[in-house]
Structures are given as C-alpha cells and as structure tokens.
C-alpha cells in the first residue's frame, strides 16, 4: 500500500474533483471509484464488490442543490483499495473497508463545506475585478477553486490511507467473528439504507410503488432460482 500511496492519492484527487467541480460524470460514484481503487490495488473485482455495498448506502445521499452530503469519490476509492489489499483475510475486511470509506466520506463532506467557504472568500477578494468584467479574474477564480478542490481530494485520500491502512491491518489481526457473519452484517446494513433511500425517493408516486413491488417480485424470484 505504501508504494502505491502517491498514485492512489492522485486518483482520489481526480475522483474528488468529479464530485462537484469537474466533470460531474459520476466517476465519483462508489460503484466506479471503489472499482478503480481496487484496480490500483490489484483487484478490480474486490473493488467492485465493496463499491456495490457503498453504492447501496450512497443512494441515500444524492447531491441536491446546496445540501451537504458525504464526498463519495475519494472515500470509495480508499474503501476499494483497502478491501482489495486485504482480500486474503475475508473475515472483517468488507466491514472495515466500508467503515473506512464512510468515515472518509464524512470528513470529505466537511472538507467540501470548508472549500466552498474558502471559494466564497476568494470570490469576495476578486469582487472589484469581477465587477469590472475582467475575464482574467473570472477564469482565474474558476481555475484557482478547481485546483484547491484537487488538492483537497489529494490530501484527504493520503490522510485516509495513512490512518486506515494500518488500522485495518491491526483490526484484521484481532478479528474474531467469522467471515460469513461479518459480511452478512455489512450487507444487511447497506441494504437497509438502500431500502430507506428508495422509500424516500419514491413513496410519493403511486406508479413507482407498483413498479417497485413488481421489480422486487422479479428480483426475489431471480434470487431464489439462481
């Protein structure tokens, strides 16, 4: 993990940038970001597995307007990379990777708020030039804020990896629950959040309620027959 720290932090920075600043192509969604993190750590499929669990949780926090939400891009990359690095120890590694990702996403959300406040300060400092219609001020402010976001993602990723990589390793060494139970708890938790999110999104629409029931019937049938 140590030798891959810089490339991982760079990837985390780019994924953090995608969350809001550029290009918002949803590379920062957990499904993508964790898979890329897993790929960097040598196992994209492990990354995808943890990305799917995180995606279920992230369904709850969609980026509406100026609402405050966790920063999933850098955080999911951290979760994917940690899980892929620990795949030889199935017991506990998924729960620990999800915890690391959730905690990083939480801190990442806070750093985004701070960055937006900093952006406002920079905008206020540039106000005379902006009022004069100086194109250099408009373009300069945009690039400065985007660069700051990139740096934010880089620092967040590097800090998260420095803290959570050894913590995960130490916890795995002491882990006593079996792999089946650990993973079942993690999945139950993620699914609960996804189901709660679905209710939040669709409970106001009668057609959506019926199509949900139809989808659930089809999904459960597939699940039982597979």
């Amino acid at each position, binding site marked *: 993990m140590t030798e891959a720290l810089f490339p991982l932090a760079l990837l985390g920075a780019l994924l953090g940038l995608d969350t809001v600043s550029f290009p*918002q192509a949803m590379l920062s969604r957990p499904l993508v970001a964790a898979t890329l993190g897993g790929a960097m750590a040598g196992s994209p499929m492990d990354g995808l597995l943890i990305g799917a669990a995180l995606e279920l949780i992230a369904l709850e926090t*969609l980026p509406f307007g100026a609402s405050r939400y966790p920063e999933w891009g850098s955080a999911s990359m951290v979760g994917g990379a940690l899980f892929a690095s620990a795949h030889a120890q199935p017991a506990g590694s998924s729960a620990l990777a999800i915890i690391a990702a959730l905690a990083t996403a939480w801190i990442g959300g806070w750093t985004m708020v701070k960055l937006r406040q900093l952006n406002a300060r920079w905008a206020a400092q540039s106000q005379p030039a902006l009022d004069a*219609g100086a194109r250099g001020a408009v373009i300069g402010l*945009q690039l400065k*804020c985007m660069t700051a976001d990139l740096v934010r993602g880089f620092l967040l990723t590097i800090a998260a990896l420095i803290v959570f990589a050894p913590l995960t390793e130490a916890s795995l060494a002491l882990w006593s629950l079996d792999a089946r139970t650990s993973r079942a708890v993690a999945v139950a938790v993620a699914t609960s959040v996804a189901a709660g999110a679905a209710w939040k999104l669709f409970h106001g629409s009668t057609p959506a309620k019926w199509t949900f029931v*139809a989808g659930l019937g089809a999904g459960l049938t597939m699940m039982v027959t597979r």
Partner: protein
Amino acid sequence: MAASAQRLVPAPVPAPARITRLPMRTRLAMLLRMLAIQGAWNYETLLGNGIGFSLEPALRLLPGGVHTPRFKEAMARQSKYFNAHPYLAAVAVGALARAELDDEPAERIERFRTALAGPLGSVGDRLVWAGWLPFCSLLALGVFGLGGGHVAVLATFLGVYNAGHLALRAWGLQVGWTHGLRVAQALGNPVLRRGPQVIAPLAAFAVGFGVPLAMLRIIGPGRTLLGVVLVAAALGALLIVRLHGRVEGWRLALGVLAILVLISVGGAG
C-alpha cells in the same frame, strides 16, 4: 455646395451582422467549460462565476472583442449570483449568450437571469438527481447482481448515465441559444415536464429488482444467512424510514459497523 455638404456628413456605420449560429469551436468551448460550471461553487454566488466562465467564449464574439466596455459589462453581469442545476444551467448559458449577442437591454437580461434560476434548479433536481442517477445506479447494480464483471458494470453505469448527461447539456445549450430570452417555453418540453414521472417508476423497478440481486452477490459465501439478512435489512429499512429527517441512514450504518468492529476485535481478547 451640395457635393461638399455630402462630404461632411459621415457615412452611416452599418450595424454589425446579427450572429444567428454559434461557431462550432465556440459551442465546443462552451460545452467543455460547462463541465466545470461548478468549479468555483460557493455559498455566496453559487454557480455565478461558472456562468460567466462558460459564457466567455461566446462573449468574445461581441463586436470589438474582449477589450470593449460591452464585453466587460457582459462579463460582470454574467458572473454574479446564479443558481441552477449544473446540467440544466446549459439552458441559461445558451439563452444568455443569445441575449448578450443580440444586444438585449441590461435590465432585461438581469430580470431574465433572476427568473430562470429557480425552475432550472427544481426541474434538474427531479429529473437528474432523483430520477436518472438512481435509475442508472440501480441498473448497474442489477447488472452486477446478475453476475456482470467490473467492465460490464462500469460500462453500463457510465455509458447510460453520461449518454443522458451529455445529451442534456448539449440540448440545453442548443435550446437556450435558439430561444434566447423566450426560453421559458422550452422548459415545457415533454422530457423535462414528464421525464421525472416516467423515470421514477423505472427507477423504482430497478430498486426492487437490482437490490436483492446485488445483495446476494455481495454476501457471497455467507448465503446460508440470506433469510436473516433479508429480515434484518427490512427491519433496518423500517427504522430508517421511521427516523426520516432525524438521522441519516449512512450515519446509522457507520455506527452499526463500528459496534461490529468493537465486538469482533474486543472479542478476540
């Protein structure tokens, strides 16, 4: 005498030709810049600077270029506070480019900016954040649940999502440019008006179908606990619904998993 008087009267300056089509290069520059429209997002001016940043390539087409008072006035006007959904802001960028290049009065442009912000925010939130994004996410989770590999899952999610995302931005710029200050009528477009109502049931189907399959695949070797997981997930979901507005599910998830770690790691001793 008459001939000398004619010489003294300056010849009328022809009005600059009205730009009816944005050059392709300008259009591409605007589209590319719109991908970074939230780059300087802040709690004071929100998207404002991003609007000015995205409009700048079009404003360069103003008579006299970038060093004229008209260009500077337009840049100053367009970099002020603005709020909209980042993808649908393309409608505003197109319409404002048209208004500036058509030399509409400043007060009219400012009134239009103010009026346009709200609808572009709410329509975009319902169409994209509450509809298209969860639909694409759950579609990809369905592919994952059906056994898709990482390439198939990512290609499904990124391909489908961004086809809609980029098409919406390109359409927004085009429709804004075409209608200018009369763009409000374009917001009655069936895709914007009926889109959320159509996508919501599709996304709800994808939730019902995709979540159990994704769950099954993540559980992997622990399938013997499937029944317990299903019951626990249903109870957990009920709790989250009951606590709606008081605590977010992801925070609860973090808490439950932290307790699991404490039990497991503490249990080792």
